[in-house]
């Protein structure tokens, strides 16, 4: 057991935690932006899958993973606008539409991939985004490598946490935005364009979730395969609940899930006797427990999930 306490092991574990937490964190923030405008989006997994494919394709074609991330964002927006149109314009059930996204988006992604590469068994490889160490900071022993030697997407994601906090807590647009998720009628009577805010929210949500997906195929692994998202969208959904709809809480929740993921990978490497499938379950089981213990009390936006119909004018 000494190995657990060794410095290199810890360093690796923490580094891996941050890397694993990144897609969950950015997608959880996507969900937060959606829910603050009253849209519960359970289609994150589907948006991620599409973003992962779009990111991979562009990165593969151009050799530039940054363009891949941009493509992921655009792909995510595209998919989420379908959801937005259905739920905002038609007043459809959000859960139903989210589920539909989860079914059709990965299927379309898979279809496009097969169109592009055929069904050959060899996987196409794209260039991975290189880590950019932050000058100075990255040379601090131990924590330098853990915190300041990552891809820009990781920095961006973690930077989004304080930005999101300030936006919702300290700014006037943020306050108006939040009121749409709480009580759209009051927002409308205060002169806020509710439908517009909801569309903006959908665009932000689609972009962030798409980037989350593209991160997987441009910065984490260099290939695309069906199921590459493997339920991270749902884990992100849990992270929002677990984090009590607060950016700081969501950060902690994402780190927790990232940590369990990193830990199970280490276990797999070290412990060849235990079936790896069992260890791979750790993040999902911890998600389940998180929901059991923290999912009970609803603390989210009051009108989240409810369709909004503007009154007849």
């Amino acid at each position, binding site marked *: 057991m000494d190995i657990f306490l060794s410095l290199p092991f810890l360093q690796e574990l923490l580094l891996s935690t941050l890397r694993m937490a990144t897609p969950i964190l950015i997608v959880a923030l996507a969900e937060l932006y959606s829910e603050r405008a009253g849209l519960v989006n359970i289609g994150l997994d589907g948006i991620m899958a599409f973003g992962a494919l779009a990111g991979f394709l562009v990165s593969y074609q151009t050799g530039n993973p940054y363009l891949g991330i941009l493509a992921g964002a655009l792909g995510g927006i595209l998919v989420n606008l379908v959801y937005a149109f259905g739920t905002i314009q038609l007043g459809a059930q959000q859960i139903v539409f989210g589920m539909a996204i989860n079914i059709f988006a990965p299927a379309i992604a898979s279809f496009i991939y097969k169109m592009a590469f055929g069904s050959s068994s060899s996987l196409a490889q794209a260039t991975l985004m290189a880590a950019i160490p932050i000058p100075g900071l990255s040379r601090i022993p131990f924590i330098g490598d853990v915190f300041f030697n990552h891809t820009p997407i990781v920095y961006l994601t973690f930077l989004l946490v304080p930005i999101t906090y300030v936006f919702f807590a*300290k*700014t*006037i*647009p943020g*306050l*108006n935005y*939040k*009121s749409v998720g*709480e*009580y759209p*009628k*009051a*927002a*409308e*009577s*205060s*002169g*806020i364009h509710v439908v517009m805010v909801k569309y903006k929210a959908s665009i932000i949500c689609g972009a962030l979730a798409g980037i989350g997906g593209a991160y997987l195929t441009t910065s984490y692994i260099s290939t695309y395969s069906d199921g590459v998202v493997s339920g991270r969208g749902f884990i992100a959904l849990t992270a929002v609940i677990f984090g009590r709809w607060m950016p700081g809480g969501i950060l902690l929740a994402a780190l927790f899930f990232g940590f369990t993921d990193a830990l199970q990978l280490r276990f797999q490497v070290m412990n060849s006797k235990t079936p790896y499938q069992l260890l791979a379950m750790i993040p999902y089981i911890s998600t389940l427990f998180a929901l059991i213990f923290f999912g009970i009390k609803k603390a989210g*936006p*009051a009108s989240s999930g409810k369709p909004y119909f503007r*009154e007849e*004018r």
Partner: protein
Amino acid sequence: MNTFLTMENITKKFGDVYANRAVDLSVMAGEVHTLLGENGAGKSTLMNILSGLYHPTKGHIYLRGHKVKIHSPAQAVKLGIGMVHQHYMLVEAMTVFENIILGTTKHKSFFIQKDKIKNELLALSAKYGLDIEIDKPINEISVGAQQRVEIMKALYRGAELLILDEPTAALTDIEVESLFRIIRRLTSEQKTVIFISHKMREVLEISDRITILRAGQTIATLIKSETTAAELAHLMIGRELITSEYEKKTVNRELILQLDQASFNATSKHNGLNAVSLTVGAGEVLGIAGVDGNGQSQLAQLVTGLIAPDDGDVHLNNRKVARFTPAHFIASKVSHIPEDRNKMGLIGNMTVKENLLLKSLNSSRFSYGKGWLLRRRQIAMHAREIRQTYDIRCASVEQEIRNLSGGNQQKTILARELERDIDLLVAVHPTRGLDIGATKYVHDKVIEARDRGCGVLLISADFDEVLKLSDRIAVMFEGEIVGVFPGINPPIHEISLAMAGKKQQTQDLAV
């Protein structure tokens, strides 16, 4: 004083129904102008037009002598019109401060400049005596304080005219006093207030002038000092004795329903019953008159087993009721036409046939083994017969009930409730939203049931309906029965006063 607002010849139609018909209203700057009228008189519609929520079908609005068109609530705010809705437009999870600045464009900054705005708000609060705790979340302050936040919201947005829609409905007496103090402060600062109410005492206390609306039309505008409660009540209710086409019966001593000092949530004036005693005899209609929200809903729920009394007894057919469940009351031959047919009366996604069956599933006529196996042919035949006799207009009895018109839905309920063997019919707003033809049909059926010896408890906000059908009339006010009157030659004047909350000596017709 100058005229601040003139509404001229305002007409608003919803479909074919007139909510306002050529209404004229003229409000002076700095006065408290009350709109008085029954439910459905068109007060709220008129104010929704003024606050930009509805567009008038016809008519003009002038503010300070200039003609204006109000397209949206945002524009109304710009013109200096602020409305405090009966149901507050406040975000519970946010603080008072956040609610007040929500959506404002006064400060064009990106970040919330809290200290600066806070000082403005505190000054405003002090000026009008609003006494607001600015940093508390909305869900931690009282209803009265929430209302002051709404007033503050309007004032912060620069309101010159404040519309208060039934502002006292949810307030305690002390809170009402403090609200009145604020209103006087507002008018002393040359703000104009339109006060909507149907509570006579309050209207007489706070108003400068009073405009009475009835059935969507302006009846009169009176100066407070030159009128009396009696005159107002008379104008508001506005009916001379109407001749009923139905023969009225005198009290029958065979009691079907008897309430003895029944109380439920007694401290609530609007959602409770306070020591209610009444009787319904076989073959008589007891009508409950009163302005909506004075405990009528609770009375209906009590005598159909939906709620149990906190105190007091209910007797059915001279037997004290021990179990307050709907099933028990249904088995005791009580039928119920509920106040909201879509919420309580029907299952929208089920067919006409199925809805007709809801309370009779267990009878051997429609099923074997108490509902285990349905006798489908019997059921279908029954449904077709009912459709014929009650003239329910539908494509077929297999049509989903939600696709039927309100009148046909109500006929379906009526058929289900009357085709059973019943002793008591509890009919709550039985003709709400129905046209004249359907209304007449429902009335005929209710009287038919009475003539068969069924006791009827009729609860209605439609005073005409109560007058027309009732053999005796009881008036409810703030959870109490404040008077019982004969149905033959009913003393309209006294009844209207009782409805407006004037307690008085009444002929004691309660048994």
